[in-house]
């Protein structure tokens, strides 16, 4: 692989180029959306193609590669890794970015000239997210985390004139910074304990832990704990989830799809790489704690979602419970990789689709959206209502939808790792969770008096976003094997 080192960063290169080009084009043709709009979509698709290229290289090579910076002796450790993990994440992130961009088109229209900045921030954010999945170096994980987070803080507050959006952005920023700081402190403590920042290479954490018996593991344990807190915050696992409902409620609807789906993909990729791979020798220490976090997430997510009146808060708590379900796959160690990826890949499309429907109903920029505003959607726009129903059934985990397959995989891997009690909690909460997903569907198709019945017109691109989300949900729910074959190969180096 002659220019493999370029392939390894192709995804980031495409997206960062895209972000710069978009801004430059925006200076010239800022109001002319038809010029730069397709450009942004194209860059997202190109990034997915770059991911595909990486994937094919990795599969042909039968493993993966990492790349060191030779001229910085003190940091003499690999910074970039290209393997099944990073390339699969690249494909999914590129596609999710594209669909989320389609879904946010109505907002872009409304934003006018500022839309250029919105789009380039989306591109930047996705690049940062992938960095988290494609590096073995804890500091680079942090850099990716911050790149994505800062972009998303801005996106959350982009419609700051709308009531609540500024509050959401500020909350997200303050709490997110706190979590990032804790993560960074964890990195520092881990470095102090092991003398390494990297998971791979000669002088790696992995090697250190397997060749040394840590007689006084306190520093290492504290470091692991703090990194865990930071990452759990990002994936909104309970009890580190409290920011999520408030931020979701205030942030512009159209930005949320990427914000939720993208961060989960990258966050879980980082958790899997750092803990399941790097701290594999410590699995007996961290796995029980992750299992408890998963339990709290499932229960809190489901219980709180039941009593929400706002669809966005409902989806936020549902996201908390989904974080719990995916964590059951993490608990299983490396046996849960394919479950995690299947769940993440399919959940991402469901989330983007669902938030796009929400933004169709309540407008792309507005904030609070009560569940009642979905009333009569079955009549106002049957297509959107049916697609939303599919997405809700998918999230609920009904057979023949992807959510079911994902849950079965996650629970199976947890059961294989002897966490049967976790599976029991997972199944029980799934059943309870059915209630609020069905509530959304019933609301859409109920025919109460006094409901506005004017036809709801939606833009073509938003329709596409929802159709893609629902199609993925059904197709891979009925025929999951092609995707399963792929995720089985999405392994870390």
């Amino acid at each position, binding site marked *: 692989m002659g220019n493999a080192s370029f392939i390894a960063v192709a995804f980031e290169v495409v997206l960062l180029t895209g972000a710069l080009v978009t801004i430059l084009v925006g200076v010239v043709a800022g109001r002319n959306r038809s010029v730069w709009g397709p450009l942004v979509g194209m860059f997202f698709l190109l990034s997915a193609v770059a991911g595909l290229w990486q994937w094919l290289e990795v599969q042909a090579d039968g493993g993966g590669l990492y790349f060191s910076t030779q001229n910085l002796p003190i940091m003499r450790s690999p910074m970039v890794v290209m393997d099944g993990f990073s390339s699969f994440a690249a494909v999914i992130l590129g596609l999710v970015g594209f669909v989320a961009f389609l879904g946010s088109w109505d907002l872009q229209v409304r934003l006018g000239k500022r839309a250029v900045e919105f789009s380039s921030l989306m591109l930047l954010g996705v690049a940062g997210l992938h960095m988290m999945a494609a590096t073995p170096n804890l500091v680079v994980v942090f850099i990716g985390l911050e790149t994505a987070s800062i972009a998303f803080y801005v996106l959350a507050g982009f419609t700051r004139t709308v009531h609540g959006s500024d509050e959401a952005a*500020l*909350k997200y920023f*303050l*709490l997110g910074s*706190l*979590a990032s700081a*804790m993560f960074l402190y964890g990195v520092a403590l881990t470095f102090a304990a092991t003398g390494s920042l990297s998971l791979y290479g000669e002088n790696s954490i992995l090697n250190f832990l397997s060749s040394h018996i840590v007689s*006084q*593991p*306190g520093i*290492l*344990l*504290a470091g*692991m*704990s*703090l990194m*865990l*807190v930071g990452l759990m*915050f990002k994936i909104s696992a309970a*009890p*580190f989830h*409290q*920011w999520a*409902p*408030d931020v979701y409620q205030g942030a512009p609807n159209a930005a949320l799809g990427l914000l939720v789906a993208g961060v989960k993909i990258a966050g879980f990729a980082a958790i899997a790489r750092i803990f399941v791979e790097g701290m594999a020798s*410590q699995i*007996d*220490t*961290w796995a*029980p*704690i992750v299992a*408890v976090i998963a339990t709290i997430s499932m229960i*809190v997510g*489901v*219980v*709180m979602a*039941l*009593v929400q009146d706002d669809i966005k808060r409902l989806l936020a708590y549902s996201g908390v419970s989904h974080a719990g379900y995916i964590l059951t796959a993490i608990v299983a160690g490396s046996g849960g990789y394919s479950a995690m990826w299947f769940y993440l890949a399919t959940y991402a499309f469901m989330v983007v689709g669902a938030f796009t429907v929400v933004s169709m109903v309540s407008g792309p920029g507005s904030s609070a959206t009560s569940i009642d505003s979905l009333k009569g959607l079955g009549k106002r726009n049957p297509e959107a209502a049916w697609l939303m129903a599919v997405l809700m059934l998918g999230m609920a985990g009904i057979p023949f939808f992807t959510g079911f397959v994902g849950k079965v995989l996650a629970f199976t891997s947890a059961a294989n790792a002897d966490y049967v009690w976790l599976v029991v909690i997972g199944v029980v909460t799934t059943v*309870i969770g059915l*209630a609020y997903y069905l509530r959304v569907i019933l609301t859409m198709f109920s025919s109460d008096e006094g409901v506005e019945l004017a036809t709801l017109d939606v833009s073509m691109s938003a329709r596409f976003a929802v159709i893609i989300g629902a199609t993925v949900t059904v197709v891979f729910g009925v*025929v999951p*094997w092609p995707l399963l074959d792929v995720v089985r190969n999405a392994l870390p180096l």
Partner: protein
Amino acid sequence: MTDLLWLVIAIPLAMATINILIGRRLGEPLSGILATVAVGVSFVLAAIPAVDFIAGTGEPVTIRLFTWIPTMGVEAELLWDPLSMLLTLIVTGVGALIHLYSIGYMHGDERFPRFFSFLNLFIGSMLILVLAANYAIMFIGWELVGLCSYLLISFWFTKPTAAAAGKKAFIVNRIGDWGFLIALMLLFASFGTFDFGVIFATAPAVLSVGMATAITLMLFAAATGKSAQIPLYVWLPDAMEGPTPVSALIHAATMVAAGVFMMARSAVLFELAPATGVVVAIVGVATALLAAVIAMAQKDIKKVLAYSTISQLGYMVLAIGVGAYSAGIFHMTTHAFFKALLFLGAGSVIHAMAGEQDMPKMGGLRKLLPITFLTMAAAWLAISGIFPFSGFWSKDEILAATFNEGGVFYVLWLVGVVVALLTAFYMTRLMVMTFFGSGRWDEGVEPHESPASMTIPLIVLGLFTVGIGFINTPFRLGFEHFLDPAFQGVAHPEEMSAALIWTLAALTTVVTLGGIAWAWARYRRSELPAESGVWWRRALGGFFVDDFYGDVIVAPSRAAADLAVTTDEKALDGVAYGLGSGVKSLGTTLRPVQSGKVRSYAGVLAIAGIVLIVAMVIIGGGF
């Protein structure tokens, strides 16, 4: 050419989708014409590769489309051999004619495009069934045709009887499907695959006699549902509530033969289970007899044909039971043509009589509906088994094969001959009451011949009815050998001497002629004989089997269902609602924690982080 075989299935399915989506815009008659063309194209696409088989040079091929369930090794595969070829040609050929006929018959119906959509869906489903290369795919087709049958029987669902008939057909068929499912599980448990090739090649080595008997009995249970045998035949007479072309296509020519086809396909398994063969033969012949007796007394022209179908299916099942698989398939082929013709002819009569189905109110239509009369007469002679019409060859082959088995089968043969007599009787009765004598029409009815779109299919089917028998005469023109590749590994019954065959044929012919003469003498009189005797009434009521089922099965089931509903609403829902409101109140209690204040959130985050560190240190073994 076999590469394109998937199109044979895909085209009708695609057309069904088109008609359901934009059928209204296409309107009448365009939606019907397109649907007919779709089936016609399917026929041509199947006929081109079929030439190889007819020329005797074809080899059976398996066409792999895609992997469906890799973990169970289920491939979406089509099997193209003489048996599936024959069925494909019948389904698409007869199907195309009936589509054409329906354009005239359904004229003016409000849901005209919907009707053709269902018909096309049926053709596609039936083709999935016959072309399947494994039991899993076959089962999909099996269920889909059941669905189509339900949709089409209750097509005029505003009529309560039609809606009820559709439901009845569906439920009764489900009972049979249960057998199919068990057979599928047993097959998978025994072989680890559903694939025909593997199962049939290894069955003699893998299956014990007991297992083979269990599997075949379950398959037969499925066949009694779909092919309307005792005890599950009761849905078929009611199915006549559907439009007449549906009766012709689904409930006479194709779908009801699916059970026979499925058993013929599984011939290797049936060969391994002689006990099943005896059961199948007895049930078949008993069904043939019972249905023939009931048909004798029916007054509704379609009911006569419905019971006649059951009776003829009994013959086919008898053929399977005695191991004469090609004979069964042969009778199925001839029956497909003459019974479709009879139904379409009956439809033409009903059309002419402005919806009247009661035979005592017909009569004297011979001159007014000449084409209908002539074509139906051909079918009449064919089903009665008069030389040289098609039914003669196929029915005699089955009876001869039964006779050849010897022993207890002599009794079955004798019953079969009696059924032949009764068949001649009730068909002659139908023809005489409808076409001869004087008109006993209601006031205001002015019979007229049907439009060309209806008579052309009649004429084409009439030609086939006369000629199709010659593909398999005792002169051995090769039909049996043509089907050989499909029945590899199945022992052929001993050859019979030509003298014996002809003696038996002559005997049945004499009996048949007797039946015709009997009915002719009885109904040719100017006054219809009063059929008021106790046996006539019992036969007219179908020996009240329906009432019996109603009292013994339906009523207790309903009571059980009521009980289940009460239990569910009172007990289970109470628990579920209780749990639900419990969880909900927990959520409401927790709500204030979500205060919205950044400070408190940061506090929670810090506390949770500290708890996590402490837990980690404790689990990890301290500082």
